[in-house]
């Protein structure tokens, strides 16, 4: 599994919640993301961790489709970190 010693991201963002979808494969990261976002409030920032290689394309597609804002993305080894601002 992944260590918890992830270095701080280059994107200096305050996040309101983190969803760890590492270990899940398509479509589950997107399904869980949609569920999580429903529980959050407008303007809040969600950090999403995912290591399904498809996430790199899937998460930006999801944000553009749903009107939520992708503030940034980082790659850390085999995992991705996404920062999403809830619409």
């Amino acid at each position, binding site marked *: 599994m992944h260590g918890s010693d992830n270095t701080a991201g280059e994107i200096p963002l305050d996040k309101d919640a983190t969803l760890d979808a590492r270990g899940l494969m398509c*479509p589950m990261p997107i399904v869980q993301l949609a569920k999580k976002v429903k529980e959050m409030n407008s303007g809040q920032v969600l950090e999403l961790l995912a290591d399904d290689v498809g996430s790199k394309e899937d998460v930006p597609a999801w944000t553009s489709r749903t009107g939520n804002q992708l503030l940034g993305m980082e790659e850390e080894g085999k995992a991705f970190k996404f920062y999403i601002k809830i619409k």
Partner: protein
Amino acid sequence: MADKFVMVVSEGSFDKAMMPLIMGTTAASMGMEVHVFYTFFGLKLLKKGVRPKLKGMMSLFTGMIEKKMKKLNIPGYDEMMQQAKDLGVNFYACSTSMALMGVEQSDLADGVKVLGASAFLNIAADSKVQLFIG
């Protein structure tokens, strides 16, 4: 209004079972309205307690692929079906196929609606995306 996504499923093998659930849960998670119509050999996928098998001789390896999926943390058929229902995906059984295959409404899983082609086409007529899985 949400974009509509419709699928027609006419085969009942393992891959044809999983595909509409993967696509359907994803589309629903993207805010789309999803409608799936099951006809011919696809119909059995809507029966209670179904366990879809790989096609033909490959059916012997269904257990292997199920195990591998579990290992990879990929949800199985029942779990995906439940996810899809929770996300509001609509499932329809073709009434003619039911008669042809001897399937009764009571054989079908909860939440499945029985329709004819006309009612489904009425739903599909203003859809944005259509997939045929057969």
